[in-house]
């Protein structure tokens, strides 16, 4: 049990427990807090995978923007009833569906024909944020996904403003 394995196990336990709490907690604000803890655990997993850029971007984008947006939306819709999964009278069936999905995924993982690669020694990663940036702008690289995702962001921006603007502001 190396140190990294212990760190990973502790982190995985925290993440999964936070995920379970997020799904089962009644008050929506607490669910948002547990979601933030889960996202933090995922950021630590990214750090363990030596993708440090993604760990920090996870904190900035997910926790710093998306989670704050969710908290804002929860505050703006305060009249809503807090719900718990027990109110859904079909929750046993849904848990069964979730369990079937989980076992399907685990089956797919453990019957992977190249499962010998699971414990193969790890080669040295060539990690450089600059290389990723160059690849994003390379026409033989990933330029087209980059441009399309920027158009997607623009469309989302315009769409969100259009959906969210209230009629009184438009008429003025």
């Amino acid at each position, binding site marked *: 049990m190396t*140190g990294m394995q212990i760190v990973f196990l502790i982190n995985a336990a925290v993440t999964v427990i936070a995920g379970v709490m997020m799904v089962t907690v009644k*008050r929506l*604000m*607490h669910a948002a*807090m547990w979601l*933030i803890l889960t996202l933090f655990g995922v950021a630590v997993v990214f750090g363990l995978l030596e993708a*440090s*850029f993604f760990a*920090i*971007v996870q*904190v*900035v984008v997910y*926790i*710093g*923007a998306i*989670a*704050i947006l969710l*908290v*804002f939306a929860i*505050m703006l819709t305060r009249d809503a009833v807090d719900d718990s999964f027990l109110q859904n009278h079909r929750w046993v069936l849904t848990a069964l569906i979730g369990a079937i999905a989980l076992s399907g995924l685990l089956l797919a993982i453990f019957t992977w024909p190249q499962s010998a690669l699971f414990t193969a020694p790890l080669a040295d990663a060539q990690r450089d*944020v*600059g290389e990723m940036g160059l690849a994003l702008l390379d026409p033989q690289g990933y330029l087209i996904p980059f441009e399309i995702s920027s158009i997607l962001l623009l469309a989302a921006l315009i769409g969100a403003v259009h959906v969210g603007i209230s009629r009184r502001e438009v008429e003025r």
Partner: protein
Amino acid sequence: MSFFADPITFISNWLNSLLSNWGIPPGWAQFMLFILGAGALSLGAMVFTIFLIWLERKLGGRFQDRIGPNRVGPWGIFQTIADMLKIFTKEYITPWGSDPVLFNLAPVLAMAAVLAVWAVIPLSSTVYGSNIHIGVLYILAVGALGELGVILAGFASNNKYALLGGFRVVAMLISYEVPMALTLLVPVMLTGSMGLNDITSAQSVWFIWQAPVAALVFFIASIAENSRAPFDLIEADSEIVAGFNIEYSGLKFGMFYVADFLHAFTAALIFASVFLGGWRGPGAELYPALGFLYLLIKTAIVYFITISIRFSLPRLRVDQVMAFNWKYLTPLALVSLLVTALVDKSLPAGQGWLRLGGLLLANLVIFVAADRLVSIYRKRKKQERRVVSGPRPIAVTLREKPAEPVEVES
């Protein structure tokens, strides 16, 4: 002599040899030294805040033509300690109907977010918390965590004014992250790496000379990120009482207070590291303690400018704050980023005077163009005055002329 040249490395080497003489394996010894170093750094930062609060009150007093605290100790040095003792002994009131978990978590998050920035800043050529190669992005990430603390504080107090104050502050903080991130990219571009150690080492010519517009925009954005005057919407006592701080008492409020002042100093520290050359100066590589002294001097100058801005300028309204960000700062940051990229790539490489002159010229052009555009815009807005009200005579005889319509700038 080596102790005075580089005390921290000397002490850490001595502790390392001590621990390994006791038979502790080197990995564990390193781990314990890391924990000790982190504790010492955070303790030092928080104890330093005592001095910072006193400094701000004295300087504020002088700016406002009064003396400031002068009773408790010579020049009022122990005033902050007296305030600390008072805050320690106050009762913790958790308001009825509030969410106890979130209510108590918010000051912790706000404080942790500020302290976590100290981990990446190189305090001298050999003393730094950790040298991650994405230090600039880490600073932005940790700033986002601080905003989370603010919005939790606003929500968890069961109070309409706290909620409103929290909304306004977080909207402002999120908006001002955009020009801050964009202008932090300019030194990253000029250096070729996002690590703060690399940025500090690459400043044989300070970045404030190479990218003055970006430095100015970053300075303004960091003052706004700190929610200090003139952007201190939350402290507007006449508008919203104390903003998201209303329901906090005792040491919980003390945590917000300390986080506020420490954040101001940390923002000055970041500015000094990224734009003013950090620990660089004559003889800083040979004697790292000198490097720390240079960093302190530069940070003190920037902090002094921040305090003087706080006590000189009036407060901005929330819509003025937003308009200023989205209409002036963000386009300026974008343009400065583009122009610096173009000039940087088109000039020949090397640290010659030609490169510096080209960059300065480009920044001057940006500044003058922005100034012209802003004045044209303001002139045009002045001509579009909207008639707000017509003549409203209370008592007009038939021989008097009616009053002129009142014109107000929209």
